């Protein structure tokens, strides 16, 4: 027999986690975070700061909302976190406020350069930053491990996947899968099929006009969109779209299939967190209202 390689190890770890046999996390726990640093947690964190809205949601979904002592300016779900002290945003983090809250751990994104000053202040910092669709699940499990809620994380992942599967069953049977352009920013930026939002768009029963080769969140040349002539345009209101040069001839505009994303759904769609299933449901209802009558 050959020695088990890394992949097999991962499989074993994963299946152990999935079998529900996961015991409590044992501390000290050392993990490699998204900045590639080895971080050791001495004990189960009781005072947590999250500086990513999706992480705040995940921490709460793991049943640890009451352990959050501070969140970034943009965390607003669930309701409970809106009452917590705010510690700034990506570009203007309030490091002093974070230190003053005496956290056991600050969970940061890989952007924003918070790790170094906080570490120097003697605070444990872990970068956990889900970006792809699959990472939503792997990072949720990772957070579960870090926070000693592995079983809950496993259940949560199962629930999100279940939510997604229910929508997918419906949309797979949709007779028409419209070609779609999804605008996330009016400059204009769109989403590639491999981004987590792109995966959701496909699962919601639409065919993305953006090819994978253009990247995950590409700036799009407007004439490309006109040439692709999508049957559905999401993320712009009809008036704005109609006023753009050359757009009035696009199929989606002719048939009135231009839909702005309601702001709450937009927030959910932008967060690779526990509400992914709900976000997909909202998106699917926009694309295929006929399936949800």
């Amino acid at each position, binding site marked *: 027999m050959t020695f088990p390689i890394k992949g097999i190890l991962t499989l074993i770890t994963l299946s152990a986690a999935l079998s529900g046999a996961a015991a409590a996390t044992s501390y000290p726990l050392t993990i490699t975070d998204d900045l590639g640093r080895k971080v050791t947690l001495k004990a189960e964190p009781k005072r947590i700061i999250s500086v990513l809205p999706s992480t705040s949601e995940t921490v709460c979904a793991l049943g640890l909302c009451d352990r959050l002592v501070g969140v970034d300016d943009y965390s607003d779900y669930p309701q409970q976190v809106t009452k917590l002290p705010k510690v700034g*945003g990506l570009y203007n983090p309030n490091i002093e406020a974070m230190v003053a809250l005496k956290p056991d751990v600050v969970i940061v994104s890989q952007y924003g350069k918070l790790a170094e000053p906080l570490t120097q202040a003697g605070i444990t910092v872990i970068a956990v930053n889900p970006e792809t669709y699959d990472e939503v699940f792997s990072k949720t499990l990772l957070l579960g491990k870090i926070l000693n809620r592995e079983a809950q994380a496993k259940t949560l992942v199962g629930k999100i996947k279940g939510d997604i599967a229910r929508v997918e069953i419906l949309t797979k049977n949709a007779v028409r899968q419209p070609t779609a352009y999804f605008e996330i920013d009016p400059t204009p930026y769109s989403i590639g099929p491999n981004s987590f939002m792109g995966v959701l768009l496909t699962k919601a029963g639409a065919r993305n006009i953006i090819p994978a080769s253009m990247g995950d969140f590409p700036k799009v040349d407007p004439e490309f969109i006109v040439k692709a002539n999508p049957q559905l345009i999401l993320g712009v209101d009809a008036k704005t779209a109609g006023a753009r040069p*050359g757009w009035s001839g696009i199929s989606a505009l002719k048939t009135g299939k231009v839909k702005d994303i309601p702001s709450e759904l937009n927030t959910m769609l932008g967060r690779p967190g526990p509400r992914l299933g709900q976000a997909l449901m909202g998106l699917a209802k926009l694309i295929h209202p006929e399936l949800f009558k």
Partner: protein
Amino acid sequence: MQAAAPRPGLGVGLGTLLLAALLLAAVVLGTGLGSVTIPPGEVLGALWRGVTRQALEGNDVIVWQIRLPRVVMGALVGASLSVCGGAFQGVFRNPLADPYLLGVASGSALGATVAIVAGWPRALIPVSALLAALAAVACTLWLAREGRRFPPTRLILAGVVVGSVLSAATTALILRGEDRARQVLAYTLGDLGFSGWRDVLTVLPYAALGCGALLLLARALDTLQLGELTARSLGVPVERLRLIAVIAASLATAGAVAYVGVIGFVGLIVPHMIRLAFGPGHRTLLPLSALLGGALMVGADLLARTTPLSQVGIVTTLLGGPFFLWLLRKERHD
């Protein structure tokens, strides 16, 4: 560095012809190439169908409603910025003067940022940018004023200070509205993205009025190069000339900047290139700058559309910066 004596160089007639051909070539290339390649025959067909008001078919929409207005807008903005640059350099007798000198760019950037962060409709962004740009220039003029005079050094200093203060305000706003930061950034990097015929028609009066006035002032600007005292003794009302030129150039610049954002270096560099090739006389400098500036801008936008550089302001700055340094070194060696 600007000798008043005519320099040996290309003949102006030939030069005009060459530059006009360059602009035409840029327009033709710019209309044919992009994320979708359209053969010249099809471009011509589309233009013909558009002019003769036939139904547009196939790629016609792209040519006629998206690319051509974008190209024309590029040419218009490039020409405006270059003419204003040439005029500013003449008015202040300062080779580093450019259309953004008096706080025009930072003013319009602030105006646009306010509109974007506040979530106003897209149509209001240029309006807000334009008003703020004109307010910024008015502020600079007011600060620089000494009785009825506007001494160049004071004007430039006031412009720099007004610009810095407005930029700081813009940055503060961007930080407050993080989720719209990218849109603001796109604006401050210059973008021709959604330029349509309506935008072209809106910018046109500013460009025509501003640049037209500057062209009429060309002879007076030439006289000013002999020195303020000489110009005065020759009967040039120096202060009034300066004020009118500044207002005209600010108007044209603000109109352009309001619609396409901040586009660096074109207005600084193009007049230098023309001066090198054709000499410093403003009666040739200004119109030829318009031709070259238009061509360069269309070319830069073509690069922006077809490469990952993605925004025309990035291209002009990336190409313009090094070129300008080269120009500085070359002049020192000369």
